[in-house]
């Protein structure tokens, strides 16, 4: 018997009128994971593109993998380097995996559990969006965050950030950033300061967990890190955001396949670069005079604009709006970095802020089209 035969046999108890009918969405998720269904177009266009949400989401995950793998390596590297022991790349990867794989597992188990429960409860199909969110959440957490905190943040993000608004496609805020913001505001001692950014930094003496932006905010200059370090990513930070190079590979995949919005990415770079240059001219403190180009490659900026700001649901939804949204994300990111003394990373708050304003941007973009139409209508009335 082939696989299809086995699946068809398993499907029987989940079909309409059968015992497990209610659990059909859950079964459907597994079935469609194995097979693209045999559904044919009924109404509307008779031919359909090969793209579907599963393919979109998997493309994003593929784009995330370079940053994830580098993040795993860098977690081990930062820890072992600062302890001063001699180590190999394998040691670094092993230490990183030991820290990060459980976080990913917790994120998927908790998040998908809630998604499946809602799908069964509401009787709709399981949406694929969480496949990306579930990987993003551990990737943007500090490495030493306790697993239970990951679980609580995930639950908050999925329940309050997404399902409360009606589920996938309806949420206002990016769920992954909601999880991080929740952890950040609910457990500030774990999420800020200079002890959490390198594995075991709070337990092992001699390990400093400070990020470059943290050093800058404290009024010092991060001389121990070269621009090359910042670009490659061998610096402390949230798990997978440190390597601009790996993020750029991901960005290339997203733009090349057409899945990610290049408008938002370029808009953000333009916004941040211009704001950075302006502050360079001002130069009142270390953060202001920090070279604008370096602003683009340190911290979560690159990761944020490539993987977070481009979330199509919470970003501006019109093509023109995406430009405006992107530019403003860049501007606010640098503004928050420079003017927020408590927490020097701005990209999370900048994106969340613009998520809230995205519908307003869209409103004005669409309204301009509506105005053109109304003007045409009224000018005709006059001539009549």
């Amino acid at each position: 018997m082939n696989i299809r035969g086995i699946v068809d046999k398993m499907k029987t108890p989940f079909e309409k009128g059968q015992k497990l009918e209610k659990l059909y969405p859950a079964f459907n998720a597994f079935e469609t994971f194995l097979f693209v269904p045999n559904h044919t177009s009924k109404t509307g266009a008779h031919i359909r593109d090969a793209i579907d949400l599963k393919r979109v989401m998997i493309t994003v995950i593929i784009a995330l993998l370079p940053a994830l793998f580098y993040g795993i390596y860098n977690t081990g590297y930062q820890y072992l380097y600062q302890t001063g022991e001699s180590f190999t790349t394998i040691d670094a990867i092993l230490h990183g995996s030991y820290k990060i794989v459980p976080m990913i597992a917790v994120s998927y188990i908790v998040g998908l559990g809630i998604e499946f429960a809602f799908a069964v409860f509401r009787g709709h199909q399981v949406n694929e969006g969480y496949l990306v969110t579930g990987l993003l959440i551990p990737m943007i957490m500090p490495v030493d965050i306790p697993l239970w905190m990951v679980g609580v943040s995930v639950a908050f993000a999925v329940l309050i950030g997404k399902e409360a608004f009606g589920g996938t496609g309806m949420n206002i805020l990016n769920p992954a950033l909601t999880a991080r913001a929740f952890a950040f505001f609910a457990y500030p001692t774990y999420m800020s300061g200079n002890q959490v950014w390198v594995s075991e930094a709070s337990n092992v003496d001699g390990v400093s967990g400070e990020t470059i932006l943290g050093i800058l905010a404290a009024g010092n200059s991060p001389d121990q890190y070269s621009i090359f370090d910042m670009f490659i990513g061998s610096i402390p930070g949230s798990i997978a955001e440190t390597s601009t190079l790996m993020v750029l590979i991901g960005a290339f995949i997203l733009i090349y396949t057409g899945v990610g919005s290049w408008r938002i990415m370029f808009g953000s770079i333009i916004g941040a670069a211009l704001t950075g240059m302006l502050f360079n001219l001002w130069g009142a403190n270390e953060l202001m005079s920090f070279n604008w180009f370096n602003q683009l490659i340190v911290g979560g900026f690159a990761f944020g604009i490539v993987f977070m700001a481009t979330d199509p649901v919470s970003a501006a939804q019109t093509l023109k709006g995406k430009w405006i949204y992107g530019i403003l994300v860049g501007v606010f990111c640098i503004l928050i970095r420079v003017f927020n003394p408590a927490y020097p990373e701005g990209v999370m708050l900048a994106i969340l802020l613009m998520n809230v304003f995205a519908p307003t941007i869209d409103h004005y973009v669409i309204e301009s089209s509506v105005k053109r139409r109304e003007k045409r209508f009224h000018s005709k009335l006059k001539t009549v």
Partner: protein
Amino acid sequence: MSEDIRIKKGLSINIKGVADKELKKVPLPKQLALILDDFHLVIPKLILREGDNVKRGQTIFYSKTNERIKFVSPASGIIEKIERGERRKILKIVIKTNKDDSSIKHEIPSFDKLSSSTAIDILLDSGCWPFIKQRPFDIIANPELLPKSIFISCFDSAPLGVDFEFILKDQIDSFKHGLEVLKKITPNNLNIGLSKNQEFLHSQLSKFEKNTFSGPHPSGNVGVQIHHLDPISQGESVWVLRPEDVCIIGNLFKNGEYKPTRTVAVSGPPVKNPKYYKTILGTKLSSILTDIKFDNDEEFRIINGDVLSGKKVKNSGFIGYYNNNISILREGNNYKLFGWIPFVNNNVPSIYRSSFSWLTSSKPKDYDTNLNGEERALVVTGEMEKFFPMDIYPMQLIKECMTGNIEKMERLGIYEVAPEDFGLIDYASSSKIEAQSIVRDGLDYLIKETL
């Protein structure tokens, strides 16, 4: 004043099996039919019964909402069957043809004396009126409300589109006469849309106002052409006709009889010898399909119209009223193991580069009817705008159609669109939504609430 307009947004889909420019004349079919589903929202009032003799051009039924709109028989014969569905709703009227070809003669005044209102009366009386559709709403035109302009798109940019130049070549005089008649109704606003390479039509129609369009599909959609030349506001109407129907009108005003010829291209990937067939309106499909060779015995889908906005029809069915093509596709009712993983299933074409199909994007490809996924919430935003060359935000309009908010639908431009304009959105949507039926329902709701 003729304009040259370049459409930038859109997508030309290249499908295997475009019809060769070879015309085969089909002898008078034994059966033909009028399908009521083709006349959207028309409630028929029958004049003839089953078993009655009918002449070519004789009224079979008229529209209950406007008794002047008559629907006539495309050929002489006997009304064989009036097929009814639920609640006795008439589905189709089948006519068994006979050879005597008797027809109704119409008095046509000399062309110089022809006024706008007599032209309209003759069009209504002869049964040519249903060829004229109106925007907004994409329904048969209301003869009581004169249009601000008439639009005829003479090229088809849809996948497997027909070559109207080829269809019009041997009836160009009727076409020109038809255009002259329409000019009586809107003297200054008869817009003919041509594509750049239609040299024959450009030279033949030198007397008329022509606009040239270039760019990907939907540049040939009449709705897109109206939007760029003379956009519709609330309270206005524009009439649209298909080129071959203009020939039928031209022939009527020349010879005084209704003679609905229909040239259809039968095309699609499984068709071995795709070509054009000249027959009459409503012909039974089997009289053409027997001539067509398929490359194997799989299950096929036959479509009245193009693959984006046509209607599915059984092979025992009839040619639709408003189409010049019969598209045939392989049914895609098969499972694909792990088919959603990027770069698996590279034979399924994609506008995204998540499969290797883009490497051979210039080559015509084989498409089937598989949805390639399941319906989902709208997640990927901005994708609809890329295929919608109008100053309208399609996703927002679709959402308002779903919620039935009339005020917002009007503000977002519902009067300018027809379901067929959303064909590419259906095709490209990663959420597999049915944009065309949502827009159709939205338009119907608007008609119900406002007219």
